[in-house]
């Protein structure tokens, strides 16, 4: 039974189902305006609102990419308050890209430019996201605050600590939802080094993290509220990181 919905309405929007990364990359190199569809969570609602890119390139069958479609899509979207943003930044991830003319790798700190922009060129495909080999040897924590459980987060905090002789040797701290991109509060990172216990962390660490934040107000919360959330969430994340490091 044909639905009246299935008449020729958009002969212009094409659909592609490549099975290899090379095929996908070739397609992206063909024309500006071809959009990758991975999990569909962002693209499909935009189609519903009337967006009609020149073509959709589905990544569902591309072997290497299949299992990481959610992460790849999220990384490319670069929403500063999304869960992966702070987490990947604190983990020190590397983004691997391929275009027709070759491959390159970019550290997450350099990949995300802010305001939903990334260093990816239109003809490049994110083929993988890798994490440092020694990630498991440190300790970490991830805390998210949302207005209700399961809601997209308002503020996120991720912490990664490396230890030597019972003391923090280096730290990566990432705060999301408090600026145009997830950021690393540098002074806070240096203030946590050399500590053995979470009680040794000075109050100045939290003040400096708040000072470096550049939150804006939106429907999910005001800038003031986001600033107020940082100390409590950061304290909790560090407590978890220290507790895991001690064991």
């Amino acid at each position, binding site marked *: 039974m044909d*639905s*009246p*919905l299935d*008449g020729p*309405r958009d002969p212009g929007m094409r659909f592609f189902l490549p099975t290899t990364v090379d095929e996908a990359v070739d397609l992206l190199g063909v024309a500006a305006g071809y959009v990758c569809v991975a999990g569909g969570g962002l693209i499909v609602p935009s189609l519903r609102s009337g967006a009609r890119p020149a073509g959709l390139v589905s990544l569902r069958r591309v072997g290497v990419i299949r299992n990481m479609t959610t992460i790849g899509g999220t990384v490319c979207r670069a929403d500063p308050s999304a869960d992966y943003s702070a987490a990947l930044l604190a983990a020190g991830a590397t983004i691997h890209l391929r275009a027709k003319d070759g491959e390159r790798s970019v550290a997450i700190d350099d990949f995300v430019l802010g305001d939903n922009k990334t260093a990816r060129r239109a003809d490049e495909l994110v083929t993988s996201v890798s994490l440092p080999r020694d990630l498991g040897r440190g300790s970490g924590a991830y805390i998210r*605050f949302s*207005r*209700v*459980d*399961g*809601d*997209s987060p308002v503020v996120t905090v991720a912490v990664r600590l490396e230890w030597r002789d019972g003391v923090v040797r280096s730290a990566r701290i990432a705060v999301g939802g408090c600026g145009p991109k997830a950021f690393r509060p540098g002074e806070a990172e240096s203030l946590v080094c050399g500590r053995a216990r979470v009680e040794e962390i000075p109050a100045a660490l939290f*003040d400096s993290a*708040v*000072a470096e934040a550049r939150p804006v107000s939106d*429907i999910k*919360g*005001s800038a*003031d*509220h986001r*600033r*107020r*959330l940082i*100390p*409590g*969430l950061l*304290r*909790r994340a560090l407590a978890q990181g220290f507790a895991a490091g001690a064991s």
Partner: protein
Amino acid sequence: MSGPSGRAFKRVRNVGAPIPRLEAVEKALGAAVYTDDMTLPGMLHGALLLSPHPHARIVMIDTARARALAGVRAVVTGADLPHTRVGMLIFDETPLARERVRYAGEPVAAVAADDIEIARAALDLIDVRYEPLPAVFTIDEALAPGAPVLHEDFGAYVKVMDLGPLEGANELCRCRMVHGDVAAGFTRSDVVLERTYETSAQYHAYLEPAAALATFDALGKVTIWSSTQSISRVQANIHEALDIPMSKIRAIAPRIGGGFGGKSEAQVQVFAVMLARAARRPVKIVLSREEDTMAMRSRHPSRIRLKTGVTKDGKLVAREVEAWIDGGAYAEESPVIINVILFFSTGPYRFDAVSSTGHAVYTNKLRASAMRGFGNVQITFAVESHMDELAAALGMDPVDFRLKNLIQVGDQWLGGQPVRSSGLGRCVEQAIERSGWRTKPRGGWVSGEGRRRGLGIGLTCHTSAFMSTSAIVRLMEDGTVALNTGSVDIGQGGDTAMAQMCAGMLGLDVDDICVVAPDTDASPYNSGTNASRSTHMVGRAIGGACDQVVAQLCDRASMMLGMPRERLEIRPGGVVAVRDGNASVAFRDVAMFATHAAIGGGPIIGTAAVTQNEPLDPAHTQSEGMLSFDAVGAFAFGAQVVEAEVDEATGRAEIVEAWCAHDVGQAINPSAVEGQIQGGFVQGLGYALTEEMVWQDGQLVNPSFAGYKIPSTLDAPYAIHSIIVEEPDPGHPFGAKGIGEPPLIASPGAIANAIADAVGVRMRRLPITPERLMFALDPSEAKP
């Protein structure tokens, strides 16, 4: 209502049986038919053009380009309506805007086309020229001197009730209720406390969006299936808007995916009919979630000032109330809702004197209208918060303070109506005992790193009735029964409860009852499924109709058995028998005899019509701008205790556990009652903590589930204890009272009180979002 002795059997599966809904299997299989599941041959799809401006003059509408689009079959605007204005209590609106739009989202035009994509494309081709006007978005803006006026011709509008002594240009109702001498009462009081409480707009968020399918037959009669709480209101709304006689309007209710008040009045039905008539083909309109949120209805935002005088040993003396509700662009039910706020402004407590004043105002936002609780939610939040604040001022336990002032059976409510039954004391007792209220510390306790818990109590009293209703009960030839009440089951289990009550009256099993689907061609008048009225009022009508059926059964059986009428009674299983004897005859045989025998007397059919009839008593309470409250039925009482936990680092409050005790008179279906308690409590939880429609310059900024958060499984506690208390009402054949709204009404106050207990901060504005609570916990400026 009481019939021959031995009536109201409960041994066969009927009243009191916790059975699943009659239509549960169909719903579980995905086979239930809701409006959007229906198609008709040649059916077109409709779409609405909504105003982008919150307030504007319509200078010009040109639909020519839209009409020219291939596949477009009809385009209608306000110019196609026969009347200047229609309305419920104030004739202040037109289904499609004429000359002016008064809220962003107001329907301006409608299109029917071969498919939904063409219809939506056609909307972009309708040229509308607007001249924006200054707008008002809050109660204060609407009442400010020199404020833009939404309804300049208000004075000339037809009004169905006395709206009171209006003053402000945007005021649509001003009502008062006065009992006793409040000034003298304050003088006598040792403590007088005055506080103001505010609430926000809540969205019904039924999962099934507004939908209607209309089709005309060759004789000009329209049949309309729609998602509605009332087929009689669909019929009336179409009749009034389009001048079609009711005899030519057939309104049918298929399965309904929730209503909660938002579907009490017509949503898209009039548009579907207009388009079907213009296109001469069936038309279906289904709103998107965004359209439904933006264009339909909300609960009224409110501001309520309470001033209460009390003696130092905790006796309530006097209360003064001033309440304002923000009615949005068109009045609809606003006058009744502000009336209800005044009516319940005492709470279930005794006072010597009360003076309550209410104002409803117009603003340039969507209609605020009926939503589960109907004004009582807002006033009960204020009253129950205030009771705790009074208790604190007196140094009394919040429960002891309430117990000292509880209204009792025989007392008169504000307005003079007597309380004929009350399980409130038992509800409080049960909620207190099961929650461990007396064993947990007042002022909360630490429950984790940076977390504190507290307990709060909230009481409620609400209606069990509204308007009028009727029932027809027919015995079919095989002794089974057709029950026809026009009652729309919106998901609350109405059909099942009706069938259980009918079976209970006749000694039958619920499977013997055929519940006739609501259809204005066939069904007797029923004002609608709202006001927690169905079990109580429709139950009374069913009782009356069944009384007639039993009388007729016994009459015929007396002829068949050769026994005097007085010696006969009905017995479980569909039998008429001789009392203390053996002779009997089955319903089936009596039905055959009645229907076919020459002396049978004709088919057995019983009818009853019920209306409430207790007007406000002017000797008890002086009032103006009030509908005569011949509406309450049986007062429905409840008490809830809530345990809340606050995360002080984030301001997030979570409800850990709740004990909800409600007096339902008699639980017709205990499982369904529990479901109403649990569901109502969680809607109240959303209202108290997370749900808020937010506007910026008159534009709704969160018209979807992504931005408007209703509770999920992680937000609602599993540990919601439904405690059924039964204190039968003498007016109902089984003593049943309403349960649909009370669980929602009681919970916000209990939650606000629990949070105050946990962290010592009194939140007087809902919702208590993490942001608001964090600021209240630490009002100092955030650094830097």
